[in-house]
């Protein structure tokens, strides 16, 4: 009887368990970050795919091999449909507002030929890297031709130089920066009038002692057959609100695939710890093909090896990873461009001609908000959010560091040490330890000194007592 009943109860429980709600939202990829030790640690998913759009769905015909997108500050999204040589403008509701297929250039009908990069300035002017026409074209907000900027002319450029501009950005001062195919000297910089001013931010040639050895022992003929040592070319770039230029290189050997160039072309990217923003820490390295700078110094890089998006904060700490190559909605076949707008991330897939939109989950927006406060130094406000982050992910090291720093400022040195140790921040742990040590000594110095003096006195007294007794015994022996 009891057995029967317990079986019934068990069956009922199993059914109830089966009916209980499924995990909140199934995701086509897993969320993770890297710990201080370089181990991949599971973490909640920060962004989930919310919707996708293709040219057919908009009723304007398929996008063929679109190469770039640009999210303008007014909410419009510019899609560079390279195969069809047109620009498609979508509004924030993702309705096709207008298309730019051709323009009047000095009275002649002109069009793009396989353009690869697009940039829209704050006042709505569109810059297109018109790759196979070997020029950069500027159009105004309504699609009317303004000017074109051809190949840079200078004595430093060799005569057989073939100019294929791939990506273009414009900074606040109107300077135009172009990344061109096969240019190893860096980013091509034009002034606001379109005159060539020079190259900036050259990638250094990597020095390899093994190569050097072979070079010294090989004959002249052999040496000529070796691959020439050239710096790696940039493949994409973005500009932040302060005018710093972020660049990526797809090279899998470099330890610094991301650079943050200041106006004079010097890399000022902050790197925390030993590992820079390199993506996945595996033998098959990530190859970054696009970078997007969002607010508070946060930047996202798009990796073509595994189709992942790595989000870093301004200190170079990995915040979260999303995306993957695959066939489901929310995964990519050949991702080429990334943009972000407010709390959304947009990724363009060239092979599928599709844009995928990702929206922040609770975890993603918490991390974003906390990191925002953290980066402007509001550690105490950030600490409250970091605590919520920890409730969702107890392995999130950034959160421990954030709380630790806040406690350090509040004078809770012992607690701060605990948190900073959990977050593996030796530098700030050491700072907390210095403060704690001083506080501890101030409090207990008197006690310890009293104990010390008492101990010394006691030792003296005992030794003296012993000596007296010994002396006494000796005297006894003598007498």
């Amino acid at each position, binding site marked *: 009887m009891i057995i029967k009943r317990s079986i019934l109860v068990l069956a009922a429980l199993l059914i109830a368990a089966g009916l209980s709600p499924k995990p909140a939202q199934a995701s086509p990829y897993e969320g993770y970050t890297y710990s201080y*030790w370089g181990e991949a640690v599971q973490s909640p998913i920060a962004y989930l795919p919310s919707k996708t759009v293709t040219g057919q769905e908009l009723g304007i015909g398929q996008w063929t091999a679109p190469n770039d997108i640009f999210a303008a500050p007014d909410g419009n999204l510019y899609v560079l449909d390279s195969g069809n040589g047109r620009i498609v403008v979508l509004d924030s509701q993702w309705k096709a507002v207008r298309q730019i297929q051709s323009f009047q250039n000095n009275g002649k009908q002109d069009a793009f030929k396989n353009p690869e990069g697009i940039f829209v300035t704050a006042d709505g002017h569109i810059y297109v890297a018109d790759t196979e026409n070997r020029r950069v074209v500027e159009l105004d907000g309504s699609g009317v031709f303004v000017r074109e900027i051809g190949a840079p002319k200078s004595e430093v450029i060799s005569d057989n130089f073939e100019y294929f501009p791939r990506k273009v950005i414009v900074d606040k001062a109107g300077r135009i920066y172009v990344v061109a195919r096969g240019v190893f000297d860096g980013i091509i910089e034009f002034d606001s009038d379109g005159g060539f001013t020079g190259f900036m931010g050259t990638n250094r040639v990597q020095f390899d002692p093994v190569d050097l050895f072979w070079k010294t022992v090989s004959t002249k003929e052999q040496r000529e057959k070796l691959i020439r040592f050239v710096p790696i070319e940039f493949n994409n770039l973005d500009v932040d609100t302060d005018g710093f230029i972020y660049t990526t290189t797809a090279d899998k050997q470099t330890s610094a695939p991301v650079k943050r160039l200041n106006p004079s072309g010097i890399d000022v990217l902050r790197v925390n710890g030993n590992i820079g923003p390199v993506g996945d820490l595996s033998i098959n390295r990530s190859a970054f093909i696009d970078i997007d700078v969002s607010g508070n110094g946060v930047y996202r890089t798009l990796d073509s090896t595994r189709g992942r998006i790595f989000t870093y904060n301004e200190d170079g700490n990995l915040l979260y990873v999303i995306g993957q190559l695959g066939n489901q909605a929310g995964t990519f076949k050949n991702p080429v461009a990334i943009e972000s707008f407010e709390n959304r991330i947009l990724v363009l897939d060239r092979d599928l001609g599709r844009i995928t939109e990702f929206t922040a989950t609770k975890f993603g927006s918490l991390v974003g908000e906390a990191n925002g406060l953290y980066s402007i130094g509001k550690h105490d406000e950030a600490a409250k959010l970091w605590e919520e982050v920890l409730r969702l992910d107890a392995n999130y090291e950034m959160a421990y560091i954030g709380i630790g720093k806040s406690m350090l400022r509040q004078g809770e040195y012992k607690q701060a040490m605990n948190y900073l*140790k959990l977050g593996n921040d*030796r*530098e700030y*742990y*050491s*700072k907390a*330890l*210095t403060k704690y*040590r001083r506080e501890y000594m101030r409090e207990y110095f008197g006690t310890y000194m009293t104990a010390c003096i008492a101990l010394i006195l006691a030792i003296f007294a005992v030794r003296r007592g012993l000596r007296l007794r010994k002396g006494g015994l000796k005297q006894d022996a003598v007498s």
Partner: protein
Amino acid sequence: MRFLKEARYSLHVAFHPFDGFWDLKYENKGKLRIALVILFAVTVTMILKRQYAGYVVNFNHPLELNSIDELKYIVLPFLLWCIANWSLTTLMDGEGKFKEIVIATGYAMLPLILVYLPNMLLSNVITLREASFYYLLESAAAIWFMWLLFVGTMTIHQYTVTKTIFTMLLTVVVMGVIIFLGLLFFSLIQQIVSFVYTIYQELSLRS
């Protein structure tokens, strides 16, 4: 009480190596059990150090700490050193017996305990800026150990200075050779075992 006296002699060796190692060999003052106790104590010290050295200077991944590993890092090199040194010095007119080599090497390791233990305690209260002091003491211990090992080897085998240095370097090479032979031996054994097992499998499946 006798054990304590013997243990105190190891301190004498550490601070007066020439005198100490001489007596150790010719007055029979060195005891094998003391050397083994020191070896054990060094192993324990290293285990403690890995776990309890201050966070500022401790770069060990807590999940990867394994006390058994210390056998690999301390006991195995110790044995290899003794064997390699003995095999070499018997061919090179060394006067030391194997037991004496073990004792001398064991006694030479005493500074590691003497410095590492207090240093470990100290490391818990130092900051990043003072960490260089920790590393200084750490290297001082290592140099002290090398010095004792050098004097020990020289006295045990009655070598000249240059010959001692040469022998010590050669010993390291021989240690590498022994490891190589060991690996070779194990890999061959492994292949023989798998070969026999395959034949057995083949036969049992066919019948």
